């Protein structure tokens, strides 16, 4: 799975994108987040509070409960502030 990060999340993680092989038992965006948060200190601070994060799967806005199901790109970012 290609993981891409933006704004505050990108800064907390330290880079804007990475390729990750997710364990087979990870089904949803939320489960992926929990797994990521366990990978390192940096990741923990970046991903520990899902309420301050928003997600897009293959460039479509999704929620934590959305199934990953063969998607190729998961974007993780703070709530948007455009306009």
């Amino acid at each position, binding site marked *: 799975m290609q993981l*891409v990060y*933006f*704004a*505050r999340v990108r800064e907390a993680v330290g880079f804007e994108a990475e390729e990750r092989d997710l364990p087979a038992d990870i089904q949803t965006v939320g489960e992926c987040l929990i797994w990521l948060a366990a990978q390192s200190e940096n990741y923990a601070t970046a991903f520990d509070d899902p309420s301050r994060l928003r997600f*897009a799967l293959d*460039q479509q*806005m999704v929620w934590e409960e959305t199934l990953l199901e063969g998607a190729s*790109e998961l*974007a993780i*970012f*703070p*709530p*948007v*502030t*455009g*306009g």
Partner: protein
Amino acid sequence: MKVIRVSCEAIDSAIELAPLVPLGGGALASFTGIARDDDGVTAIELEHYPAMTEASLAALVDDAITRWSLLGAVLIHRVGIIPVGDPIVLVGTTASHRAEALEACAFLIDRLKTDAPFWKREHRADGSAKWVEAKISDNARADKWRE
């Protein structure tokens, strides 16, 4: 007719809205969001998610065109470093009557603030830079458009 663009250069409202005039609509509404120097901000930096941005703006414009039978729409958002006083976003809509044009214009600016992948960072004279936090009120305004 619809123009959707993420722009690295300054936005010129007059030029961008001109193509809406000859479409036969009796009403043309527009909204311009301008970078402001609130408490010492000198520039606003806009980051976005290139692979997703234009698609998300296009989806909003298609939705507006169908819901308010628009004859045309323009949605241009600037990215990069934007000096205070410059436009950040331009929305333009034209329809036969004013209710459609005005409502679609408000819809587009409200919804793009919660649905399009942009992030604002405020730069100050002292070199500091701070990400802008999303406003709850923006979500409320966006929700009122959802059926």
